[in-house]
């Protein structure tokens, strides 16, 4: 019963959490602010991370393209590598209840432990509010926000748009490239790419 109450509260928080109509985010423009509840039960506010680089990773554990990067350990490696350098990393799950990739807090915590995932937090976005404010289209789609709150990268994780883990070795990883350049104070050369993968399973989408 207690769990049910906590869960309903969590759900209410997510459902009632600041819905805002903002034009879709774009590279070079300020990132839309958001408040999200994570699987660790904490609430995260993007504005609190001004002064830091923030990575947003759209996630769906049933998507073959997400599995490519998790079963190979590639995503976890990136998460560890960049959070160790002070980058904030949010995994965001915008799958609606009943859709592929939807998980509750317990489900996501179990998954992260099993996979050795190491983001700062995994935000549960079953209403798709955060996903739609960033116009996130695929999993995995990656967005990088600079310490001034401006989007500096939006697109694919790398340049091999396949579901085959063999394609990871030798691929150009756009997240590494963009963060490497940005942390060195250089402009990001490849700031926007076509994100590849599965469509984000938003509420109401049949697709």
């Amino acid at each position, binding site marked *: 019963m207690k769990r049910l109450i906590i869960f309903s509260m969590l759900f209410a928080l997510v459902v009632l959490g600041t819905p805002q109509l903002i034009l879709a985010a774009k590279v070079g423009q300020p990132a839309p602010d958001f408040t999200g509840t994570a699987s660790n039960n904490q609430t995260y506010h993007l504005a609190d991370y001004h002064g830091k680089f923030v990575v947003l990773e759209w996630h769906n554990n049933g*998507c073959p393209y997400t599995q490519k990067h998790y079963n190979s350990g590639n995503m976890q490696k990136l998460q560890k590598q960049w959070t160790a350098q002070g980058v904030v990393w949010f995994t965001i799950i915008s799958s609606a209840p009943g859709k592929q990739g939807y998980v509750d807090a317990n489900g996501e915590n179990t998954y992260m432990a099993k996979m050795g995932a190491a983001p700062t937090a995994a935000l549960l976005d079953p209403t798709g509010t955060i996903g739609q404010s960033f*116009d996130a289209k*695929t999993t995995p789609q990656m967005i990088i926000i600079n310490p001034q709150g401006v989007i500096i990268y939006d697109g694919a994780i790398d340049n091999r748009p*396949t579901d085959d883990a063999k394609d990871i070795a030798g691929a150009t990883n756009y997240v590494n490239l963009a963060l490497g350049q940005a942390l060195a104070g250089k402009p990001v050369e490849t700031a926007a*790419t076509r*994100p590849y993968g*599965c*469509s984000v399973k*938003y509420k109401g989408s049949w*697709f």
Partner: protein
Amino acid sequence: MRNPIEVICFFSRFILVLILLPGARASAASIPHGTVDFVAENQWITPGGQTYFGLNFQLEKGWHIYWINPGDSGQPPRVEWHLPSGLKTGEIEWPAPRRLGTPTIVDFGYDHAVMLLVPVRASTTLPTNRAVQLAAELRVLVCREICIPGKTQISLTLPIKSMPPEVNVQTSELFIAARMSLPRRAPGEWKFNVSDQKDSFVLTAKLGRHMARATFFPFEESQVDNSAPQKIMPVAAGFQLELRKSDQLLKPMKRLKGVLEFSANQAYVIDVAIN
């Protein structure tokens, strides 16, 4: 005939003969929620000639596969050919796709059924009076609401003969239908112009007639916003189509290349300088 086993044995010989009949349709390979049939247009391969092959996809209701530019998500089928020396494939010829998706995520692909055409050139030195096997590994992403990657082996055995090619009547209708669905070269008297207008490209088409409906499919990704509605406006002797630029387009573009479709089996390849 005496007993059921013998009957089966007797008839199975004929079935075997049918399967091995040169030029016959190979049995369909299964892919997630569908099948793919590897078919040949001609009954044999002639040295020095070109023969068309087809990858004939049949999909269960609601499932789709992708065009060469898949749009916002997805991935086109990929084929790794294993051909005997003396045979070489050309570029796959893709029928005009459909817009599939939701208001915010739009993909380009095919549902229900589609046949991709593959030209194969035979060298003049290809030895005749024998059969060769054309094989390939096909990878295909099949999606409905969710996506399932599939991998299958396809193969077809055809004889090599020095005689001029003859069409296989079992498959010729498939090839006729597939060719009708291919985008054609736009007639020379049609005039196109593309102007770069900050957030969009405006394609003006002068066809000498009015057109109520048109859809543009860019060959390259990250040029046009896939999910943005393409607004059509009539102009004298033609129309204008407003194509919102992709957010991923950060560098200026010189040409706009793609397929312009008016209706089923009425699609044209265009390649227009942007000014």
